[in-house]
């Protein structure tokens, strides 16, 4: 099976999710990667080590400066020549827009939100959670190429020690329409949520934005990162960068502490693979407690400050 992986590059850096997907793709068939934009060439070595035999590259700035369309143009041209059986994209904001446009351009369907893939006699089968994650459907792709979007953290990235051949591709001529004219960073230089060993998240149960520092202080004391439910992101208490869940980040930390979060399925799909889940909720029937390794029924506003003190006291020793 000829299988392509679309590399997610942002601000010149290769996103870890691409290496996760490649690690899986190399077991499914002959894996190639496509890296477009500044940083493409620098990414080749890592792509090769993770199983790409060939990497199609173009360093053009347009891929970074215009939304989806230049990449769609280039991908469409590559598909016509290379005829892959499947193209895998990260299920992320940037990649899914390219995948969507490309599928419409090629007139093929796509399978989104995949958590696992297998190559069988009948082609590619894909596992996708649905009904809020309570069920998992297995689909068989009907189209060529099959376009599949894979959820971050579905696989663990691992090197296989290869080296990729580099193939320069022609730049896209069109598609320079939706232009990114400015980038604003709100997250600061704190520990990245996706990389943190400990994540402490807060939800609407905190009562108001003034209490969110209780979550941040505990996260800091534990050397971790603070996260949030969508309810409080939508309410404007914290920036979107902190959102965990279906439309936010997927995290897989050693410990996830949820304070004042009910545990809606759209939240738990983003954190249920944490090694240890601890939940603090004043409602003994909250769904989050059914999934937690340790559930504390109580008032987060009282427990969080005491917990932070206790953690600091132990770290100080």
């Amino acid at each position, binding site marked *: 099976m000829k299988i392509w992986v679309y590399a997610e590059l942002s601000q010149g850096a290769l996103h870890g999710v691409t290496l996760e997907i490649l690690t899986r793709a190399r077991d499914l068939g002959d894996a190639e990667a496509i890296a477009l934009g500044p940083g493409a060439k620098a990414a080749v070595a890592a792509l090769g080590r993770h199983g790409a035999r060939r990497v199609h590259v173009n360093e053009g700035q347009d891929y970074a400066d215009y*939304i*989806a*369309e230049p990449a*769609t143009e280039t991908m469409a041209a590559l598909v016509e020549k290379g005829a892959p059986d499947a193209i895998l994209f990260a299920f992320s*904001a940037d990649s*899914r*827009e390219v*995948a*969507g*446009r490309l*599928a*419409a*351009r090629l*007139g*093929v*369907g*796509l*399978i*989104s*939100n995949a958590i696992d893939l297998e190559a069988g006699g009948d082609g590619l*089968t*894909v596992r996708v959670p649905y009904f809020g994650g309570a*069920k*998992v459907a*297995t*689909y*068989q792709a*009907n189209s060529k190429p099959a376009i599949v979007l894979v959820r971050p953290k579905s696989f663990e990235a691992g090197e296989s020690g290869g080296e990729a051949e580099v193939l320069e591709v022609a730049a896209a001529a069109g598609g320079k329409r*939706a*232009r*990114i004219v*400015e*980038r*604003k960073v*709100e*997250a600061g230089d704190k520990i990245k949520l996706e990389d943190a060993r*400990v994540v402490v998240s807060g939800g609407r149960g905190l009562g108001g934005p003034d209490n969110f520092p209780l979550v941040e202080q505990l996260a800091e004391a*534990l*050397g971790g990162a603070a996260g949030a439910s*969508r309810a409080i*992101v939508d309410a404007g208490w914290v920036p*979107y*960068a902190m959102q965990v869940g279906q439309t936010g980040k997927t995290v897989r930390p*050693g*410990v996830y502490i949820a304070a004042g979060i009910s545990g809606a399925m759209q939240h738990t799909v983003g954190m249920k693979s944490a*090694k240890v*889940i601890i939940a603090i909720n004043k409602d003994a029937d909250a769904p989050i*407690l*059914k999934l*937690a*390794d*340790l*559930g*504390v*029924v109580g008032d987060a506003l*009282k*427990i969080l400050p005491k*917990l932070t003190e206790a*953690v600091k006291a132990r*770290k100080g020793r």
Partner: protein
Amino acid sequence: MNFPLAPRGADLKIVVTVKQVPDPNAPQGLDADNTIARDREVVLDPGDEYGIEEGLLLREASGGEVVLVTMGPEKARDAIRKGLSMGADRGILITDEGLAGSDALATTRALAAAIRPEAPDLVICGTESYDGSTGMVPPMLAELLDMPQLTFAKHVEVSGDKVTIHRQTDDGYQVVEAASPCLITVTAGIAEPRYASLKGIMAARSKEVRQMAFADLGIEAGEPAEKVVGIADAETRQSGEIVEDNGTSGVERIIQALQAAKVL
């Protein structure tokens, strides 16, 4: 969340795509064949209320028209009515016996066929639907309509034919510009959707909702991109220990758990 708009010469023609979905607040079930039971309470997708609100705000600032387009069963007319009672001008309901098996691409083809003759300046979609939830319709629609896409907008500004949005990103936002016609996806929180007033509800009754079948649009039912070959329960985590906090027990047990997990 909107800057005052610069006065525009021409009116804006705005299409907002809306979808009817199972009520997120009602208990949900699965039918015997493992499809999401649709005979339950259905509502206009809360995510699309933001699209309608943004469309109405833009129309109020520059004049023009807001047209709602949905594809769904006959009952999806209710979703359109809801939007009309919020203040949209008219609606298009695409309904057809062949739509049952529609995947994102088939849905998009139908929407594109209905939207194209409207020649809108702006098409506004939700970022992702409540039950589809994969956000694939908007980029596909932008491609089929040959429009640039301005996505994850948490703020929109229109000045002449220049459209500028703030695009929410993982670590902040980007300022993104394109010329209209273009497609915008809006995030929750872009603007608080208004409630339909009694007057709005009355007015909606006489607004036009045009019903169209696939044949009217010159399209056919498509083959879905995938075949379902199995359905299984997801692996669930075992629920663990539950402790009632008595003022100290909660903190004590959490500290022990953190030590066991070796983060303390």
